[in-house]
């Protein structure tokens, strides 16, 4: 990696005896969009607030643009922040809100006017400059909050669950808009969310957090397809976990309810008879035999959910209940619960959950 623009080193944060962030390390390149993804209470917002300067780390450092900012106050860090609750100043118009940071920085009135105009163009609210926040919808308020954060040209943009309060349709359109604006301006961005779909669709890289630790850092593709831990595998996307027993570590065979599978050299070095957790995404499993798929087990269909373009089928294999997705085909009716079925998969799609 080239020199990181935002560098977080060995950060730890404790509130009394409760440790909320531990041994957190992350390097973010200039212009990169990184998401902190995790469940409530995993420390992602605390970590973001440490970068913003609203929380002081118990240990560790935060560097922005090669400068140690750990001891700097939030108003000295040149960061832009967007909050879940919008936080627009109710006494100011949209233009007043967007120009606030520039005014605080002592910029001349002409420069403020021109930058506010640019920002209003960027968020496509050109005619809303004289409106007050209470006259805007939630989505419009959040776009103004984004413009306000970016107007002073911050070094880093921090987004604290900015889409959580919006309805589903606005959320999808706004996340595309945020990503487009971020790419256009090339601003280094850290985004906090508990919504995996947001993180997967918007980010260059994702940091999956759990219990105050970064469980895995990777591209959305890596996080989804090659989860490093059981938590990441379970948290990101839907996952079928099958408990098995290694029968031959050298040959890579594992016995599971309903049959045996080969996982290649991924259990090499382990002992025969050792328990192992295998995982498969629903889209990696197919109903019936398929060419090129080396894994085949038998089970009983327990539940069929018609979701429109996709049909989700739950198949009982031994004690495990596996979910699989199949596309809707108008020419053939969906399977029926209670039927016996064969399911096939490629053993290369199978994940081994070590921890």
């Amino acid at each position: 990696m080239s020199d990181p623009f935002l560098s977080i080193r060995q950060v730890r944060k404790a509130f009394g005896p409760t440790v909320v962030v531990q041994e957190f390390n992350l390097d973010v390149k200039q212009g990169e969009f990184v998401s902190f993804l995790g469940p409530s209470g995993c420390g992602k917002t605390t970590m973001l607030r440490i970068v913003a300067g609203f929380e002081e780390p118990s240990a560790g450092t935060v560097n922005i643009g090669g400068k140690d900012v750990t001891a700097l106050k939030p108003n000295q860090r040149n960061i832009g922040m967007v909050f879940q609750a919008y936080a627009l100043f109710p006494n100011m118009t949209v233009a007043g809100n967007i120009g606030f940071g520039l005014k605080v920085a002592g910029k001349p009135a002409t420069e403020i006017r021109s930058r506010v105009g640019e920002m209003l163009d960027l968020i496509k609210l050109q005619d809303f400059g004289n409106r007050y926040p209470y006259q805007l919808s939630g989505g419009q308020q959040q776009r103004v909050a984004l413009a306000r954060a970016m107007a002073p040209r911050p070094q880093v943009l921090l987004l604290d669950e900015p889409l959580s309060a919006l309805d589903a349709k606005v959320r999808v359109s706004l996340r595309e808009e945020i990503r487009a604006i971020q790419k256009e301006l090339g601003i280094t961005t850290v985004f906090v969310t508990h919504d995996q779909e947001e993180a997967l669709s918007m980010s260059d890289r994702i940091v999956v957090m759990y219990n105050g630790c970064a469980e895995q850092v990777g591209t959305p593709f890596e996080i989804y397809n090659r989860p490093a831990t059981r938590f990441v595998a379970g948290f990101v996307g839907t996952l079928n976990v099958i408990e098995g027993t290694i029968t031959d570590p050298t040959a890579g065979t594992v016995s599971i309810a309903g049959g045996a599978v080969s996982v290649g050299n991924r259990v090499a070095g382990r002992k025969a008879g050792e328990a192992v957790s295998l995982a498969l995404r629903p889209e990696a499993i197919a109903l019936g035999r398929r060419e090129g798929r080396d894994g085949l087990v038998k089970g009983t269909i327990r539940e069929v959910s018609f979701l429109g373009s996709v049909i989700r089928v739950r198949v009982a294999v031994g004690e495990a209940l596996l979910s699989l997705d199949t596309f809707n085909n108008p020419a053939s009716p969906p399977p029926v619960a209670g039927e016996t079925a064969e399911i096939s998969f490629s053993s290369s799609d199978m994940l081994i959950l070590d921890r």
Partner: protein
Amino acid sequence: MKQNRFWSFLFLAIGVLYFLLPLIGTFEFSLKMRRGVYSLDAYEAVIFDPRFQATFGYSVMMALATIVVGVLLVVPTAYWVRLKLPSWRPVLEFVTLLPLVIPPIVIVFGYIRLYNTSSWLPLTGTAMGTNILLMFGYVVLSLPYMYRAIDTGLRAIDVGTLTEAAQSLGAGWITIMWRVILPNVFVAVLSGAFLTFAIVIGEFVLAALLNRPAFGPYLQLIGANRAYEPAALAVIAFAITWGCMALIQVVSRFAPRPPAQPH
């Protein structure tokens, strides 16, 4: 349903009569200074009395000083407690309620004992010192009203997030207070200010015992020696109080409207 309305109107009428009859009586009496006809002679006599002008002017100045000091004391304190020390709110609530429990006469005797001419801070030794002491006394008396008005204003806005938003945009504490917090609680501050004004204008005990030429002691003096003028003064004092209340209602219409909060 109809019966319920009848009783509501009856109790409302009793309440209105209870408050208005004495006022109407006082007002009517204040107009009877000239024998046989209604006139504004009593009001004329009061308003053109140099002592009225002097004492009223003095009390207005004291009220303005009290408001400025009260706002400078209460706004940052209430803001800071809401922002950084929320667990201290009950303590602050208790402290600001004390002036309602401790009679003003106890407060003023405490002041006289603490700040007399032989004390380490002899404020009562000079007129200016006594004025300052009186003003601080008024700040204490108005504290329950000023604090509650401002605290209610602060409750209506998300103080923490607005502060952090302003900080992230480069603002320091003074800018945050002056450009973000104060404009958003301005109506609450004005409400507190009008209440303070009404309290200070009619206050008697502190001013009388500190021997300052305020409007309260003047009211008492006139009441003890004249017939019609005290009635006129009572009506004027009520009018000032009601004027303050009306102003609170008027300015509250111009309050910045908080946007819809996400849920």
